[in-house]
């Protein structure tokens, strides 16, 4: 027999002014199952809670209804109080008679009647409540960071700083990512390498961080706190533990015609190489597509020259398996392919380059040692024209519909650096809008115009063509309402950025959702910007949306804070309001698994006794309570009615409906 206690809160005058609390208490007394009904000025106060606890003890209550403010406010308070008195916290229900009643109705009679119905509805529900216990799952105190760019580096450093072990998995031979390719950074113009490489070294020196370069995530199993991850360590053909980074192999390699990816293919590198001087780890790698020994068996020079015997041509890919409590995705971006934007003549003219190529041409460690020379003839360009929004905000099938966010600022940076270093250079910028929101950002752009004399032209370029050795840039000057043609020596395209395509596979492995532009989706656009909808997976950097370095670093640190908050726990309390399948009714149809956004539902073969010693094995749904988030999508999809949601069971909601309709 149910023994329900009902407590009506006055909330000072917030409720009591419009709702006749006395009448509500009185009306409820006669409800079947109610053994105690009272009202009190402030139920959430110490005394109010004591009243509740005393009643539980005295009347041996099996269920409690509090008519008060929104459950979003004090449900947890009253559940805790009940628990302290030995009542299962999930036997407490709230009737929201403040936000949903007293505050919005003026007529006392009407409001009182509604309050009575709302309390009766809560009673109807609580009668069907079952005690629930939050499960516990252990936490593996180690984090995985996928991607070794600035986002991954920052997240790893912060997690390591808190004392947790963290692995960085990077698919390239070195960490550093895109930031390592940049020359200077906006809006302060400090050199990218100067601020990045110390962080890279910190990663290498940390005893908590394990850097797995030239490696890719192959498989992910498990759930928050308990991920099991397979990592492919690609064959490097150089023993990381032996190589000293002396570069003798590079000097001796006869196959020197490989395209230097780090320099955006603007120059060549040998088949055995270290991507750049400050690479971490400072260990060579052999490009198997280019190496003569690996391709034809002839050569082997590097092995002969290596003083420490680090070269091993027989090396193969290895799969390692590790366990993690949390995962940070920081896979970064790449510039889009602009071959289809033929109006800018990128593929026909060597002197039409992308902004990232310009970064390398301006970089002291780049192919021209930092001297700005145009690729076609290695001369100083005297007139440089920048074109913004190449592929951004473009709905055609060549471009991207979104704003890439960083281009306005880096174009201003490039324009300024060029004018600073080569004051005799004329710099033009075609733009649609200059978008520089951010601290000191618009000021930075204005400096380009006002102090550095960069010519900003509002309008888009229609065509770039070669005439008498000049690149003719023909476009609109919308302010002047003129079509202008600027004979230029170098044209720089502010190319749109897109998520690194490998993110697709990672999203699938993690059941992290991805949007139509391949950006990973955050759990909530405002309130959960670094969480993936998959518990235990966090997002940092451009994989989640276009952003610049300061934003990326902030997001990476935010991820780290979330990871630390998770790893610091010995076990995780799981939300007990999760789906559960009645195995005797489940027909194993897989519909529930199809709608589950979290991959919480798997199928197991279960043996059922049929009587007479016979058994039958059937495939039935199993909901992993640690992964289920409790949305209930599966409960409605289930054709046999086997799936139900604890705490929001079909019977409970039906009884609420009935109670509301009872007149």
């Amino acid at each position, binding site marked *: 027999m149910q023994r329900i206690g009902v407590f009506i809160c006055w909330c000072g005058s917030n409720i009591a002014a419009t709702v006749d609390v006395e009448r509500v208490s009185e009306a409820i007394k006669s409800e079947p199952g109610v053994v105690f009904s009272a009202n009190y000025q402030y139920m959430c106060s110490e005394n109010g809670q004591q009243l509740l606890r005393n009643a539980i003890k005295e009347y041996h209550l099996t269920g409690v209804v509090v008519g008060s403010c*929104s*459950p*979003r406010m004090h449900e947890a308070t009253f559940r805790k109080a009940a628990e302290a008195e030995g009542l299962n916290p999930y036997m407490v229900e709230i009737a*929201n008679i*403040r*936000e*949903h*009643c007293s*505050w*919005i*109705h*003026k*007529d006392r009679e*009407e*409001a009182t*009647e*509604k309050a009575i*119905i*709302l309390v009766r*509805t809560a009673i109807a529900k609580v009668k069907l409540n079952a005690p629930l216990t939050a499960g516990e799952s252990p936490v593996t105190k180690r984090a995985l960071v996928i991607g070794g760019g600035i986002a991954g580096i920052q997240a790893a450093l912060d997690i390591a700083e808190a004392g947790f072990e963290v692995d960085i998995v990077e698919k390239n031979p070195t960490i550093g990512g895109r930031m390592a390719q940049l020359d200077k950074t906006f809006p302060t113009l400090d050199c990218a390498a100067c601020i990045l490489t110390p962080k890279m070294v910190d990663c290498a020196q940390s005893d908590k961080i394990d850097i797995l370069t030239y490696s890719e995530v192959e498989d992910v199993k498990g759930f928050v706190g308990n991920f099991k991850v397979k990592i492919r360590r690609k064959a490097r053909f150089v023993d990381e533990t032996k190589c000293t980074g002396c570069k003798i192999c590079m000097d001796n390699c006869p196959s020197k015609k490989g395209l230097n990816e780090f320099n955006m293919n603007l120059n060549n590198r040998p088949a055995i190489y270290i991507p750049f001087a400050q690479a971490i780890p400072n260990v060579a790698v052999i490009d198997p597509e280019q190496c003569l020994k690996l391709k034809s068996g002839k050569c082997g020079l590097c092995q002969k020259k290596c003083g420490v015997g680090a070269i091993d041509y027989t090396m193969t890919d290895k799969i390692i398996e590790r366990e993690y409590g949390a995962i940070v995705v920081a896979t970064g971006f790449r510039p889009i392919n602009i071959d289809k934007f033929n109006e800018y003549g990128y593929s026909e003219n060597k002197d039409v380059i992308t902004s990232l190529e310009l970064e390398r041409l301006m970089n002291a460690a780049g192919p021209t040692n930092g001297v700005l020379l145009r690729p076609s003839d290695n001369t100083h360009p005297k007139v440089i024209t920048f074109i913004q929004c190449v592929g951004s905000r473009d709905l055609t099938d060549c471009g991207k519909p979104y704003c890439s966010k960083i281009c306005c600022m880096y174009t201003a940076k490039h324009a300024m650096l060029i004018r600073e270093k080569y004051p005799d250079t004329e710099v033009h910028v075609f733009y649609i809008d200059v978008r520089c929101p951010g601290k000191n950002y618009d000021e930075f752009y204005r400096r380009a115009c006002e102090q550095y004399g960069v010519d900003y032209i509002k309008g888009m370029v229609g065509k770039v063509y070669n005439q008498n050795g000049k690149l003719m840039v023909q476009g609109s000057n919308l302010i002047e309402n003129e079509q202008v043609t600027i004979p230029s020596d170098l044209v720089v395209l502010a190319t749109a950025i897109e998520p690194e395509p490998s993110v697709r596979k990672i999203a699938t492995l993690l059941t992290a*959702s991805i949007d139509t532009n391949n950006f990973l*989706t955050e*759990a*909530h*656009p405002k309130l959960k910007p670094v969480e993936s*909808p998959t518990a235990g997976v966090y997002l940092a950097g451009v994989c989640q949306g276009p952003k610049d370095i300061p934003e990326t670093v902030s997001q990476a640190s935010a991820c780290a804070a979330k990871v630390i908050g998770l790893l610091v726990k010995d076990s995780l309390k799981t939300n007990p*309001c999760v789906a559960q399948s009645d195995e005797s009714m489940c027909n194993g149809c897989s519909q529930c698994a199809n*709608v589950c*956004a979290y991959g919480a539902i798997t199928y197991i073969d279960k043996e059922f006794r049929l009587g007479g010693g016979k058994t039958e094995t059937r495939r039935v749904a199993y909901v992993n309570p640690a992964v289920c*988030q*409790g*949305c*209930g*999508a599966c*409960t*409605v*999809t289930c054709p046999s009615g086997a799936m139900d*949601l604890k705490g*929001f069971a*079909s019977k409970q*909601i*039906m009884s*609420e*409906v*009935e109670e*509301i*309709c*009872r*007149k």
Partner: protein
Amino acid sequence: MQEVTEQKKEYVPTIVAFCCNWCSYAGADLAGSSRLTYPANVKIIRVPCSCRVNPMFVLKAFQRGADGVILCGCHPGDCHYVTGNYYTRRRMSLLFSFLNYMGIEKERTRVEWVSAAEGAKFSAVMNDFAKKINELGENKRLQDLRVKEERDE
């Protein structure tokens, strides 16, 4: 005096509103704290996600004599559970057209997207919906007469 009593007895429709915990229930709370009124015959049931609403619940409401049923969820793309509200949209548009076929007018059922920040919208939606239901009057199409008799007794 007589007249006033008559008016009081005028039919007051019953409206059931299912609100998802993350957006619309919070939107309703905001409507409350902003003191934005809507009729008292709207009663809210809290569900974790609009996709928790089984068509059975809607049918049950009409069987028990509800005159209008409204579902509120997060805006498409903003669902706390990623895709829940898409299921709601699909399921309910199917259910509502079935109900319409059975004579439960389309205006008696509705799905609305109300975010946690849209208290004003919540109130406006409920006012509008209640007005429409008032105009339509009592729904008798799916009502279980046995239930009605029990009640009248």
